[in-house]
């Protein structure tokens, strides 16, 4: 683009952002901070101003934070046209237009798609509609669930032991509420952290009085005459009575509105390049449509150029900033999104944090502390390299391991480290399940093809 054109875009251009949550807001702020003076429109289907989700499964369920008071802090004034409570329903790439649910259209010179994900619903609709069955993604979900927890249910049943499900179970136990957790895999958090660390999470649950059922699936939710859920049926034929059910089966990407638009969008998200530019369905990169946050899937140079979908708070912020920057500059001024994946969770009094991409690791080595004590650092290796690390109550060491990942440091970790236990001298298999077996859905999914691969097959979107 000619210099004058970029100049004009920055002064009087029109930028539309679809998805008014974490990524959308941070992108808008970055655009203004970097001098974008044109017209900015934020389109969001939720009726609320951007709010923060991580507290929804933590402080909110414990009653320590008001679900309607978790607005995201504003970094600066963004002087935007807000279209809250309005969904984007279609995209005309050629004309540069977003169609809205109220019939309006918004024209853009640059578009950012930050529509995130939604909670995967319970597949049987009639059961999903029973009173007492909850999903947990929005503040309304959290408010409803919190209210039920406060009313003192006899038992809460959590379907799926991913991070969110574990956090819900933790919040229940902290309030003395009986809780059963069902997980298809062999342990909680298996998809995200593997079986070895999952076993530690399982012990934590047992210790805190969670009734954990592994290697089972839920076959049916049973309601009473008044339409309230009363019991959960499991694949091992057992039946658990529960008056609250939390469906925590992972997420689905909000891309349906892009069907037929010509973008490379589908159930696995929207593929984009490292500069956050969306691919069209032919695999050719667009130059005016950008993607950020949970809905994006982008190649990461540090991880064999695999396309990563990261449902991580920090990723949404960093990618939004990079996308915004790249939307209003050209060529060599553009930056790649090279964020080091990092995720945290707090449950059962433990702070869990990971950096890198654990599911890529075949082997795991506990380099500090001990899994028996639930305080440790574990390092994941892939093809002789460190690719990830996880800590339980040991966050302050992770920076070191992050650098090891960045440097492609060798695995196994041969050098001594503080608090290395004699039993942890050798790596063990990290024990990730076969990715073809669905669990609750890991928080990082790899859907890799490296740029070196020559054969690409495009599967058209199918929902």
């Amino acid at each position: 683009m000619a210099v004058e054109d970029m100049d004009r875009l920055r002064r009087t251009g029109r930028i539309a952002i679809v998805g008014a949550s974490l990524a959308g807001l941070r992108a808008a702020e970055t655009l203004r901070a970097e001098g974008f003076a044109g017209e900015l429109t934020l389109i969001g289907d939720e009726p609320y101003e951007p709010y923060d989700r991580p507290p929804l499964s933590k402080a909110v369920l414990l009653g320590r934070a008001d679900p309607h008071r978790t607005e995201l802090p504003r970094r600066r004034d963004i002087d935007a046209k807000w279209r809250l409570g309005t969904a984007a329903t279609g995209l005309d790439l050629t004309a540069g237009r977003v169609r809205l649910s109220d019939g309006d259209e918004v024209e853009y010179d640059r578009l950012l798609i930050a529509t995130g994900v939604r909670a995967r619903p319970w597949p049987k609709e009639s059961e999903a509609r029973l009173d007492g069955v909850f999903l947990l993604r929005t503040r309304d979900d959290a408010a409803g669930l919190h209210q039920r927890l406060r009313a003192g249910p006899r038992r809460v049943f959590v379907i799926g032991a991913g991070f969110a499900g574990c956090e819900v179970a933790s919040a229940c136990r902290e309030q003395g509420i009986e809780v059963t957790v069902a997980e298809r895999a062999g342990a909680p958090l298996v998809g995200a952290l593997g079986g070895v660390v999952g076993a530690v999470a399982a012990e934590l649950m047992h210790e805190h009085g969670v009734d954990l059922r592994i290697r089972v699936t839920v076959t049916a939710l049973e309601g009473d005459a008044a339409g309230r859920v009363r019991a959960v049926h499991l694949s091992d034929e057992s039946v658990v009575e529960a008056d609250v059910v939390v469906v925590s089966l992972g997420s689905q990407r909000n891309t349906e509105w892009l069907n037929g638009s010509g973008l490379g969008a589908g159930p696995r998200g929207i593929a984009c390049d490292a500069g956050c530019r969306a691919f069209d369905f032919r695999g050719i990169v667009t130059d005016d449509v950008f993607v950020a946050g949970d809905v994006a899937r982008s190649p990461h140079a540090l991880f064999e150029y695999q396309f990563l979908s990261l449902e991580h708070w920090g990723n949404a912020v960093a990618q939004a900033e990079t996308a915004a920057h790249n939307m209003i500059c050209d060529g060599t001024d553009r930056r790649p999104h090279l964020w080091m994946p990092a995720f945290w969770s707090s449950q059962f009094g433990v702070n869990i944090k990971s950096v890198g991409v654990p599911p890529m690791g075949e082997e795991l080595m506990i380099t500090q502390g001990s899994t028996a004590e639930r305080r440790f650092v574990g390092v994941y290796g892939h093809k002789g390299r460190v690719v990830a690390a996880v800590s339980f109550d040991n966050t302050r060491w992770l920076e070191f391991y992050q650098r090891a990942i960045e440097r492609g440091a060798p695995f196994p970790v041969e050098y001594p480290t503080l608090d290395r236990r004699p039993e942890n001298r050798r790596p063990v298999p990290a024990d990730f399940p076969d990715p073809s077996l669905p669990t609750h859905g890991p928080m990082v999914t790899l859907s890799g093809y490296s740029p070196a691969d020559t054969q690409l097959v495009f599967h058209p979107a199918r929902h």
Partner: protein
Amino acid sequence: MTQDSIVRRITDFASRADPYPVYRELRGTPVLHEEEGGPYVISSYWDIEALLHDPRISSDAANLAAAGDDVLLQSEETGGLPPSFLRLDPPEHDRLRRMANSAFGPPHRPRRIDGMRGELREIVTGLIDGFGDARGIDLVDQFAYPFPVTVICRLLGVPREDEPRFRAWVDPLVASLDPGTRQGADEEFARTAREARMQLGMYLAGLAEERAKEPRDDLLSDLVNSRGPDGAMTMMEVLSTSVLLLIAGHETTVNLITNGMLTLLRHPDVLERLRHEPELAPRLVEELLRYEPPVQLVPQRTCITDIEVRGVTIPKGSRIWLVLAAGNRDPERFKDPERFDPDREDIQHLGFGSGIHICFGAPLARLETQIALTELARRLENPRLVQDPPPYRENAVLRGPRHLEITFDGVRP
């Protein structure tokens, strides 16, 4: 060490008033090792930050290859007490720090520090009122020194009537930690310090026993009666932790307050701003921690295996110095690092260290200094520096003025 070696110049008293030119030179050799057996000196921000998070780096003196007396090492002869968690590695460090923490801050004692706000202000007000009609004071002796001792006494739970006795033990003890005075120490001085240490230990032990029987709302009671998942502290652990809190919170805070006032008097525009804009205090204190950090360097680290930093191999067991004050002015990290600028937005300084040993008392130290400087700025009319630079303490690690004479036209109510 040759006469003009950089390490020698860091410890040389002549550098005390302004060590920053030496640090600038030091950064020219990011891993400096001047002689066999001498320390490996690290001075760039990113290297220090990395080593503070490196699990091959130990704080335990037992891992040093040669015990050798280092002039910069604080004496830890706290009267036969076991090493405090400052000088321990995980898992012992973590266990003791966790237990101390549950007595000190969230989640168990969320209001212990913030709840002291009123009391801190009261102590500060009392000290400033105490200037009376004087038109000149020594800020160190009359303010910056007594303030943190009083605070730590209240925090630990030393009864008010015992405070004077307590301080009479603490003063010589703290003085004895200064390597300068320790080296030239005459027998008399050393004996007083030993005596004080013993008296203090006995006093604290007695107090701890009382609190074990009859707990009160104070830190000592919590330490003695901790019954968390980590079990209980032994009496020895209670004592060494209390003494650590006492000492660690002491020579540091006094210097932050004194360096703070000195810096403000050298930047009268900022002092004037603080007077009208007390909300500037938090940011100002952070910038002070970067610009004039009370702990200039961390001398008590070693590596448990050979490590490589910027292509230099540091052999296992070597002594490593992390020069926080040099990292804080690293131009690769901070824009215009030699400028004192409380409006800086990017202010991740190393003043409190980083990693697992990051200052335990930081929330308290911040609050104390914010209140102290705000009140001094508000109440002193036209304060002026009598001598610039002021006379410094001997200590190169815990660096700060020995006296700070200031004059003023009056004290506002």
